[in-house]
């Protein structure tokens, strides 16, 4: 029930989500980088009375952003899907080599605190391999990241713990 609600919530945000994106329909996992947030009239009004629109109300749990979670959860009950809404921020942070979204990505991937600076450096260096085009999806970014981690001796261990 909650998941269904959540699905509709997310559908409202990401109209262009692929019909059968990995992680289930309406998951957003298949969204392209720089997916727009549409400032619809409904949104404008919703914000004037701080409202929620559509049937989005309590639709959340587990930070899975509407994605089915057959895949194992990774860290603190969060799945990769938690990164869904932050792809733009993540691309910016990774391009610069630092930032909150990049830290969060490291945490979600289970990277231990002592390896996070190195993680930031390595992903910064391989930014163009991870964000390989303007049309990457969260899914591609994730698998590209794992590929980069695998080739780094210090970080390889995080690429296998899925």
């Amino acid at each position: 029930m909650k998941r269904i609600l959540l699905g509709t919530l997310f559908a409202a945000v990401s109209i262009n989500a692929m019909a059968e994106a990995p992680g289930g329909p309406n998951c957003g996992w298949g969204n392209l980088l720089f997916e727009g947030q549409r400032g619809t009239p409904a949104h404008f009004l919703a914000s004037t009375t701080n409202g929620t629109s559509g049937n989005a109300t309590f639709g959340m749990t587990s930070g899975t952003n509407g994605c089915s979670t057959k895949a194992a959860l990774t860290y603190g009950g969060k799945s990769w899907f938690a990164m869904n809404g932050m792809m733009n921020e993540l691309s910016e942070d990774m391009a610069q080599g630092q930032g909150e979204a990049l830290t969060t990505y490291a945490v979600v991937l289970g990277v231990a605190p002592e390896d996070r600076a190195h993680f930031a450096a390595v992903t910064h260096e391989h930014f163009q391999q991870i964000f390989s085009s303007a049309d990457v999806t969260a899914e591609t970014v994730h698998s590209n990241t794992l590929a980069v981690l695998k080739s780094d001796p210090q970080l390889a261990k995080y690429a296998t713990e899925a």
Partner: protein
Amino acid sequence: MLKRLASLALIVSAPLHAAPQLDLARVQQLAATPYWIALGHYETAKLGGWRSYVDDPRFFLAEDGAHHPDQELQATVAALYAPASLGDKHAQCVFPARTRWLREQLALTDLPSPACQEFDTWYKSIDPHSAALIFPAAYLNSPSSMFGHTLLRIDQSNTRRDDTTLLSYAINFGAYIEGSDNSILYAWKGLMGGYPGLFAMMPYQEKLSEYRSLENRDLWEYQLDLTPEETGRMVEHVWELKQIKFDYFFFDENCSYRLLELLQVARPSLDLTSQFPLTAIPTDTVKAVKQSGLVADVRYRPSRERELLARAEPLDHVEKQQVLAISADTAQLQSPSFTALPRDRQALVQDAAYRLERYRANGQERDPAQAGRSYELLRAINRNPPPPLQIERPGLPEDGHQSRTWQLGVGTREDRAYAEYGLRMAYHDLNDNMDSFPLGAQIEILQLKLRQYEGNDWQVQRLDLATIRSLTPRNELLKPWSWQVAGGLERVPGKHDDEVLVSHVNGGAGGTWQLGDDLLGFALGTVRVEHHNDFAELISPAAGFNGGLLWRNPLGNLTLEAKGDFFTNGEVRRSVSLNQQWEISRDLGLRLSASRQFSHLATAQNEVMLELKWYQY
């Protein structure tokens, strides 16, 4: 439905688990404790007795539980003893906060133990550990955002250690809009309580991008010193409010009020809601929370727009032109004029160009060409990253002046002396004490001014329903419009040098320019309709102008304005005015106003007034 199930279950289960026979006096006493009142969102009704803000039968187990906390308490205790086989529908699963409290208060050691799978999964996934009060500050070009909004963020045990607030959850209370309503109707209904209020829980990150990117509002995060246990109590109660409808009125029973109630559920010793008998404005609630000693520390997140402006600030004219050129066409990254710049300047220019490009994409559908440009700029940033942005934290929003204002003035109009008495319900005008407010934003709601001329001659001077002005400076990169609207009653020159009370609505649009560090110049074209007893027609339209200067000086804010209204019936009304505020203390100000008014109906009139302003609460 639930109620029926529960009572049905109760009958069936009577022989299995007997609810304890509660002593009536004990019930009365328990039901009157602030905690039970808070859990049921009760308030004392106007005609005595109780009423609940919750407007949803699913929230109550007793037939008239919305008006009888004691009956609701009894019905809840009975329902707690329903057979465990009800599972997720069991009252213990639906009302975990009530359950916990009643179990403690009444020492209910023999309760059945239903499996609350849904609740347990949900609660575990949220893993509440600490909480923060979130206040999105006003956005200058949208003064209605000055009323602001507050929400709560629920952090997990590792959130602070790992710096992962992006993974936290937000608890938001707002109007619940079904379907796609006509927009004007929506705003009206929202204000008048036509929509129910509902709690929603969502990833905090969604709220962040909504406020910081889509609406360009700075965000303030007040970390609260609630213990994990207190935070958990609050989250348990939020579960009870899942999909539950509240009465919702924009001005009092709003988001801020509801969140104060939640905080009282978290820590019963707090008394926050009683401080707001009339209206709860979000900044005021921030103040109340802070005064109660709940705030551990404060964090500031600048909006995306502020970040863009901060990045562009050190750039000179030529570099800003580069920013514009590159954001329009990334091939310019290879142009000799760009590559000739020192490398560290290149880093700033391309980062500003990227931010500008994303700013423009704000609120739009994804455009492949634009996405391509953004990506090219990211690659350039990746090769030559700029230093991290350093943005100075502005004044805390809760340190600004209070919102309700009393005004006492003395002055002369031509040769007649007068005293003027005024009250403004909210909030801030261009001249008011400036600390923690943006320069050039004004929103006033409900202002009444009475004048007493010599000889005890009283008159209504003005009644403003709303006055909104938004003077946002234009610059090389961003070109926002300035605008204003106002409506109400005011005195204008009439025949025989009388001051005539007219009703009016007016508005304008134009531009504002930053003329110096603390100096804005503005010019707007205006339109106005007015009902004036000295005019032949019922409604008289006019077009005109409004321009001037706004200067932040050591004493306070100064405005120098010229206005003109050219009516279709031939009347021409013009005025020049000067206002200088002297900021005495946070909540006290003295204002000198001088004006000269011209009209075809009367001789020119001079007016000078000195006015004391007390920003009361």
